[in-house]
């Protein structure tokens, strides 16, 4: 693999310019600037809310200094609550080019767009010269998620990703699995795999928190399509999802924006702390993908049975299709056909190996299907978290 070396020592497998709206009111201008450069790597990310939120601030700081990001343009309306100057300072400290354009100060939509386009044009010129260096597996962070799950997800794609995860962990990479609301029922199994008894307790507590949270909301994380696809209960869906984590020892529990301190397998706790405040923990798959990326994930392995099409801003998404019938209908959107396991055309180990090989190619710059199709979904909403305790990262 080849990476772009950043000042914090991390390496990126992409070198993108992010155009960041700091309130929904600045979204249009940000989008207009980025669209001018399609299909080059200029991507829009942002936070829609006008009220400040610590989580959103720290998420944005992590995302704008993600190793896959080369330059950052911040677009502000001017009166929103987001602390844009702090964000600018955090980005500038990493040595990345960063600029803030305030629409009210620049004189409106047209003038801001023009200035933004000129700035991005210059960055793209400069980024073309950026050198790459060799990148080792131990420098890679891989996240995984499943979405649009059906009964095949837990038979093919999820366990195949688990096999790939085992290989990545053996090679020294950091691997992150998540969505504690979809691990309800797996806590006794997970506890047995924890590196320490104290961590085991933290893992169980994170699932108990998720169960309480969803209880208050009145819905488990279970969509009509899950039942139509043969899943009957949240714990059945959970066991299938849990297979993505493979069989390695669980090295730690992290929260959105925490970067794994070393290689190993980590659980990302995505359910907010404290009382239920801002609604559902993750309203849609991309909210989870963004959190995995904020934890430093260079690439996301996405298992889907019903057939999700999404990609993401910042990090490439590898789509592993669990259902052979879905694959036939939507092959153009899928990177890996794990459904062939059900057709007896491949084993779990073989598909696991295929995923490992593909991640190496994506790390070398090869585009995933969602990248080729122009998917750069992004969503960030209000949340609140307490920092993790010392038992969460026993080796750190």
């Amino acid at each position, binding site marked *: 693999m080849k990476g772009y070396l950043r000042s914090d020592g991390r390496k990126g497998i992409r070198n993108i310019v992010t155009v960041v709206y700091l309130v929904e009111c600045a979204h249009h201008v940000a989008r207009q600037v980025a669209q001018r450069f399609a299909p080059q790597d200029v991507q829009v990310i942002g936070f829609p809310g006008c009220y400040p939120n610590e989580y959103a601030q720290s998420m944005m700081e992590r995302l704008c200094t993600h190793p896959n990001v080369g330059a950052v343009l911040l677009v502000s309306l001017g009166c929103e609550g987001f602390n844009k100057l702090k964000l600018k300072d955090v980005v500038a400290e990493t040595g990345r080019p960063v600029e803030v354009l305030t629409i009210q100060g620049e004189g409106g939509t047209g003038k801001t767009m023009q200035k933004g386009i000129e700035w991005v044009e210059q960055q793209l010129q400069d980024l073309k010269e950026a050198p790459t260096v060799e990148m080792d597996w131990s420098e890679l962070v891989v996240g995984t998620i499943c979405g649009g799950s*059906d*009964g*095949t*997800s*837990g*038979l093919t794609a999820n366990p195949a990703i688990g096999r790939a995860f085992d290989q990545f962990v053996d090679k020294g990479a950091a691997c992150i699995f998540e969505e504690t609301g979809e691990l*309800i*029922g*797996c806590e006794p*199994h997970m506890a047995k795999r924890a590196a320490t008894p104290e961590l085991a307790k933290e893992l169980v507590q994170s699932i108990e928190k998720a*169960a309480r949270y*969803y*209880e208050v909301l*009145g*819905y*488990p994380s*279970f*969509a*009509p*399509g*899950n*039942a*139509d*696809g*043969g*899943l*009957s*209960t*949240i*714990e*059945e869906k959970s*066991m*299938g999802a849990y*297979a993505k984590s493979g069989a390695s020892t669980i090295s730690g529990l992290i929260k959105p924006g925490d970067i794994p301190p070393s290689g190993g397998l980590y659980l990302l706790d995505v359910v907010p702390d404290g009382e239920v405040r801002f609604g559902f923990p993750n309203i849609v798959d991309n909210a989870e993908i963004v959190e995995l990326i904020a934890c430093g994930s260079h690439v996301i392995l996405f298992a889907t*049975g*019903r057939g999700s099409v999404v990609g993401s801003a910042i990090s490439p998404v590898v789509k592993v299709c*669990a*259902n*052979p*019938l*879905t694959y036939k209908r939507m092959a153009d959107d899928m990177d890996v056909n794990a459904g062939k396991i*059900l057709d007896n055309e491949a084993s779990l180990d073989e598909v696991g190996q295929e995923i490992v090989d593909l991640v190496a190619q994506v790390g070398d710059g090869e585009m995933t299907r969602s990248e080729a199709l122009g998917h750069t979904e992004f969503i960030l909403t209000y949340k609140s978290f307490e920092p993790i305790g010392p038992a969460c990262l026993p080796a750190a």
Partner: protein
Amino acid sequence: MTNKNNTAPMGEYDPRLILLDPNDNIFGVARPIRAGEMLMIDGELVQLDQQAGMGFKIAARNIEQGEHILKYGAVIGVANQHITKGQLVHVHNIESTYMANTVTTGTRKEVIS
């Protein structure tokens, strides 16, 4: 676990079914099976009561009301009625031991058949 009557290892079964763990009392469905089709389970021919799409579940043995449903060797729910070997196991006859679903099948067009 209340499957003490049914701990014998699984014998021959239909190739469209997958046994994910030796302790399981359900099979995963690898290829769709139509309602009314005959299935070989443990050397016995039984009739499937409802269509079973890919990734659905079929009872590997008789399951009593209140008995845990085991998939991957783990509890994924509880039978809310007697389930006969070879019947579809889904939201109509099992429930979560954690949180009830807010959705049931049958109200939407089945895409996978």
